[in-house]
């Protein structure tokens, strides 16, 4: 147990370091707005960085990737510990492990996003949420952090897929929430006509908006899949595929909230500010579904 806890701890500090580096990176960048011609390709942002900022950015990425690898190692170690003690492999079998898995998925999503779009400024927000997830996990009391054997209801192969799919969707919504916050920051800066180098480093509003939408488009089908896997599991374990248990209901609520968003965006043009606020709101609902339901409401999912 100690080995994985040490690695989880290390992950926490590495994410803190990478968050700090990303924020430092934002401050280190030169004001760039004046150089950017309209329609200037997004990929070329790097060219306008000072050498110092570029190096900081590289270090930030390296530390993030390293942190993610340690996070992976921590989860794997925990998986083997579980195999020894509790007859399952899934390293997402309690609240602590689930949080650590969510931050793993968020950081993975971020690294992929950075690889593909080459926008490092997002790191300050999305890695930030990953860090908070990891931090919240490590704040849990010790008895929540250990790999206790699973209660009989959880001891099933369904835990591998139902839980991981659902948690991955939470991670996608977390990314969308982070991007939403970023959008609101940037928009406010633009409205005030701020020339702060901090905001100048951000990608343009349209890009942030679209990326946030993309994250939701990944989370939405995943959550649907996760809910249905849960229904299938319930059909095996509880004798009915749907019993309006608070967790079930809340995941449906979250899904409906994002469903409304997707429809609104398709045809009623919900984008920009409204979409950003909505993404943050949706993420708060996800947090409630993930944490609030477990700690405030009682129900069949009380163990998770």
């Amino acid at each position, binding site marked *: 147990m100690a080995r994985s806890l040490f690695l989880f701890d290390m992950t926490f500090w590495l994410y803190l370091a990478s968050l700090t580096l990303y924020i430092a990176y934002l401050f280190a960048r030169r004001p760039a707005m004046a150089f950017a011609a309209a329609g200037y390709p997004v990929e070329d942002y790097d060219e306008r960085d000072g050498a110092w900022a570029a190096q900081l950015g590289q270090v930030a990425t390296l530390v993030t990737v390293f942190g993610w690898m340690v996070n992976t190692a921590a989860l794997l170690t925990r998986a083997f510990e579980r195999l020894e003690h509790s007859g399952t492999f899934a390293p997402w079998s309690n609240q602590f492990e689930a949080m650590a898995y969510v931050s793993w998925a968020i950081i993975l999503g971020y690294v992929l996003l950075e690889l593909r779009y080459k926008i490092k400024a997002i790191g300050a927000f999305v890695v930030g949420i990953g860090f908070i997830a990891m931090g919240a996990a490590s704040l849990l009391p010790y008895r929540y952090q250990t790999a206790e054997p699973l209660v009989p209801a959880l001891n099933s192969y369904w835990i591998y897929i139902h839980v991981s799919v659902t948690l991955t969707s939470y991670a996608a919504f977390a990314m969308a929430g982070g991007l939403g916050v970023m959008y609101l920051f940037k928009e406010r800066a633009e409205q005030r006509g701020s020339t702060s180098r901090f905001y100048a480093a951000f990608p343009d509003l349209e890009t942030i908006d679209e990326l946030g939408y993309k994250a939701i488009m990944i989370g*939405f089908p995943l959550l649907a899949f996760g809910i249905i896997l849960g229904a299938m599991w319930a*059909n095996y374990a509880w004798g009915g595929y749907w019993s309006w248990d608070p967790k079930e209901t809340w995941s449906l609520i979250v899904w*409906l909230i994002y469903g409304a968003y997707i429809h609104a965006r398709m045809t009623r043009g919900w984008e920009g500010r409204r979409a950003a606020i909505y993404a943050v709101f949706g993420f708060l609902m996800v947090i409630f579904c993930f944490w609030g339901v477990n700690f405030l409401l009682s129900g069949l999912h009380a163990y998770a």
Partner: protein
Amino acid sequence: MNGRPETLSEQDTPRTPAPGVGWEEFSRELVEFFASIKLAMFLFLFIAMTATIGTVIQQGERPETYIQEYGEDAYRWFLRLGFTDVYHTWWFTSLLGLLCVNSLTCFYKRFPAVWRSMKQDKVNVSLSFVKGMKQQAEVTVPGTKESVAQRLAQHYVEKGYRVLAKNEGGEVTLYATKGVMGRVGAHMAHLSATVIVLGGLLGSYYGFQEFGVCLEGQTYHIPRGNFDLKVDKFWIDYHENGSVKSYNSTLTVVEGGEVKMTKTITVNDPLVYKGIWFYQSSYGDAWDQIEVARINIKDKETEKIVKTIDLEWQKEQTLSDLKLKLAITDFVADFAFNSTEKKVYSKTIEHANPAIKLTVNERSTVQATPWIFYQFPDLFEIKDSKYQFELVGYKPKKYTGLQIAKNPGINIVWIGSTMIVVGITLSSFIYHRRLWTKIIPGADGVTVHIGGTTHKSWIDFQKEFRKLTQTLRSFQA
């Protein structure tokens, strides 16, 4: 940012307001209303909001619980609004029904356009239409219109587009499209809502869910399936640290005197026979049977314990040294006495006031059947007996709690579930892209006008469009 492809591709037919409200007008308005996104959003959010009620207020509790927690006035309102069983109220069910109507009407109204865009060509567009696209470019390249069109069309095909071309009136028009499956997926998801609800209705009308308490070794008749279920064994497995690993019951299905199947069920592994599912749901201590009890035999005069014995359920034990024959003939977990029927029974299933009925035969002269209480050892005394009997402990018989359920709608629910997951996934990751190209011969070479639109995912489309124009510029002779 997301274009409205419908208004781009379909020529909007201006609606001529007919005088008076005819049926046609009315039905069109009706379809318009039920297919509207506004209604969909209202339903999504309203269902989400009302669904929270049942997670905050405990559902299906006894009236006293609500009155105690919320007061009588609040409880009266709860009853009026159905807050004690929100998810089965007429209004909540209606909301779900309305969502089905909404998605079905949307399918009816919008799917034909998607279908047409799969089947029909959209080559007949004007130059101003191409130029009016949000994403558009104009490039002059050398070559004849045919050769350029050829190369461009090939490029589109390589990128996975379906291409239609027209060479007419001195210009070539190309129409390239891909990813219409994304929109088909969205409609598949729309249909799935109704499929799932139908499956649910079927289950709730023709299915059942029951709970059975079964003791080891007993056989129970299952009238709904017309077969018998024998509970062979119930036991609990533990982890090293003492926590429960699994609850297990071995069940045997007997039909027409013939053993059909035997299976050990656990919490995640039910037995299924003739569409009826038997789940390991709970377990507990039986309230009318025990396995063994420990009894102290005290000498009344000396008040000393002369012997401690373990008595098995309904098995007589002879103690020749004390000249005693003892047997436990009955047990109740929570002692109560019905004075009219003169019957002892267990008030609850809790072991709140356990008592055994001891049949005593002393020297073949004194015979008695006293109730011996675990909590009140001095309550009964057998007059002529030399001894006082005390119940110091017992091991209750375990019962296994089986959930018995049949749901004929389940497969329909799974079909709907598959549709919704596949549908949403398609519509999330595949987006419908369309490109129109006009190639018009000019002074030096040809002028290529490209305009394009996407259903969503604008950044990727912009990137693709940029690459496309770069490729086009590289067309050197």
